[in-house]
């Protein structure tokens, strides 16, 4: 494991390559950010700092094939990405984490939470894709264009660097994977506390879909962040950190309670 100053860079070998993550250390539970399709943890840096300033242990991981992580052969497959996240949690090791997905990262986080619930204490789904009412390449592209004016201009170079790192084929592969996955079928099986976050001006995730996703989660809650487009972690990092901190305080019991077991906390 390699560490660097302030925000630490941590590299852990998983499966067929190294997985790189950034960490701003703090108190439990660890919050692990999972990025969207074609991008990387770059767009999470401002949020990592903001959550770190709230005193929480904040992580952002680059999925295999993206950002600084290794380059596996073949196109990205959602199921394999979720498996890698679970293996990476075991390898670090991290327990009782809260997975925070952004956009397509929500689909990865939900798949991981449904199939590997052991190490996952809760979910934060920021701008969960894909709205089943607009599942299609053209409609998603149209929504993406309509959303663009609500994002920070300074995010564009980061996106371009990410696309360059991942390569066109892998970026397109991730988008296709996001369209193939039906998150709405899995949400009812997430039995952990889950917070859905939507930017009030998000054109990719309309309010009615954010509400529907929340409704489908047995323990879901919705928060709307004002004056933000789809990429809330980059557009409004401080507001998102406060919203997440409140969710952790309310829904995720501190580690000390675990002595009583999940049954002991009921009622």
């Amino acid at each position: 494991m390699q560490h660097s100053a302030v925000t630490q860079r941590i590299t852990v070998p998983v499966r067929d390559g190294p997985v790189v993550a950034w960490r701003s250390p703090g108190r439990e539970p660890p919050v692990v950010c999972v990025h969207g399709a074609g991008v990387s943890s770059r767009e999470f840096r401002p949020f990592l700092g903001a959550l770190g300033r709230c005193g929480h242990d904040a992580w952002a991981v680059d999925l295999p094939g993206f950002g600084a992580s290794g380059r596996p052969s073949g196109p990205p497959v959602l199921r394999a990405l979720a498996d890698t996240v679970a293996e990476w949690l075991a390898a670090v090791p991290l327990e009782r984490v809260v997975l925070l997905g952004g956009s397509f990262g929500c689909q990865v986080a939900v798949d991981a939470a449904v199939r590997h619930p052991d190490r996952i204490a809760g979910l934060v789904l920021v701008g969960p894709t894909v709205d089943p009412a607009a599942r299609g390449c053209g409609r998603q592209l149209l929504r993406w264009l309509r959303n663009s004016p609500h994002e920070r201009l300074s995010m564009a170079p980061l996106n371009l660097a990410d696309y360059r790192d991942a390569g066109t084929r892998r970026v397109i592969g991730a988008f296709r994977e996001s369209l193939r996955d039906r998150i709405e079928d899995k949400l009812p099986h997430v039995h952990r506390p889950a917070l859905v976050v939507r930017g009030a001006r998000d054109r990719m995730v309309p309010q009615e879909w954010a509400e529907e996703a929340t409704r489908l989660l047995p323990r879901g809650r919705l928060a709307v962040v004002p004056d933000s487009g789809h990429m809330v972690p980059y557009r409004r990092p401080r507001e998102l950190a406060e919203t997440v901190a409140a969710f952790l305080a309310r829904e995720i019991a501190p580690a000390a309670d675990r002595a009583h077991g999940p049954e002991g906390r009921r009622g």
Partner: protein
Amino acid sequence: MKAARAVASFDSATGMLRALARFLSGRDVPALGRAPAALDAPVSGLLGAANRLPPAVRDRAYALSGWASAIPPRQAGRVRADALASWVTGHYPRRRPQTLLVPVRRHGVAPDDPRGDLAAVRTAGRELLAANPDLVLHHMHDPNQDRLMIAEMTYFRLKWSRLPAAYRAFIRDHLAPGGRLVAVDCALRWPTTTVGDRYLFQFGALGDASPEEYHRGGPRVADLLSRYGSPARRWDPPAPDGESPEAEWGLQPALLDDLTAFAGRHGLGLDVLGFPTPQALSPAVADLYRAWYEERQLPADRLLVESFLLLDPWQALRTGSVPYWAVFGTESCRAGLAAYLDSTAPYDEIRALLFNHGTESIGLAGAEDWRRTAARARKLGVLTGVDAAAYPRDFAGLVRTHRELRKVRTRCPMPQPLDVAGVPDVLTSRQDVVWRPAT
């Protein structure tokens, strides 16, 4: 004078009449009256852009929209009670308002000059009453909540003291012998000044400010006046000489007497649904809907908080929501909602609508306060159709609310009409609400 031209479209009575009439024909309440729904999106965008204008410009636009909808004072004498009643029954609802608002244009009187307002329109009021012996005129002047609207006009609220012929004909044509009428009796009263026979002047109105604050002033009044750049720090209204049914909400007792006699003559049952203030009925109605959903074995965990004119009975049922109507956006109405939530099982979803009346009036709760109360929902608590930054001067609010409400996912079929038999028991289980036969 055509009744549709005389009656205000922005008033509670007309708004509820319209919502009910639309509901009975199986439709929701469009934001733009008769305009096609396809116009909603561009109009919403246009009005949203208007929100970026400076507050003073927006205030002026509100005032002018009021002036445009008011009638010139010289035409007040041409308003006919019969025409108003026929216009109402033309909507074919089963419940009819007892009060209508006829706004009258008036220029050159400051909102903070109630005596000047009364003097300016007294002649028009007398002419209107001379032509309509069955009407009682409540001239209402509220420089707190109607501040912008009364800049260029006066509120004439008209109450019937006798059941108008069109209402009689409507009941005879639509109610089977042995049928039952329900009179809605809001007992709210307010200090008034007698101007003449059947002519009352009411200063102030139901809201967060008390009659005492309106008549004697206080720190909140001084603060409002200073915020709006008025030289005065309290108002100087004509001295009240008694109390009367509140101009907008209260029932004129003479009408109930006439209705009782009419019901007796025609062998109809007459019940009175009584409550002290308009807000008092909301928890009872919410209980009724919740019980109804449970009886239909549907989830009863969605609450739709409606706000003044923003109410839509059709959308409430389509979205499977329990409706809770907040009279205004004031802090006391918000506290009323919080008290209702304390008194009932938790909701999973709470959607709150917020009506924009253009004025930072006394005791108005902020959009964020309403959002926090809505956030008491277990899963999602949101403001629907609200631009928190523009509230309470959001021009696009009406259109946006309608658009967003239409998008809420349907989850149950529309029900058969609710039978009245079990209704009194549910409604009267709330303190303050009575359902009794008329004596």
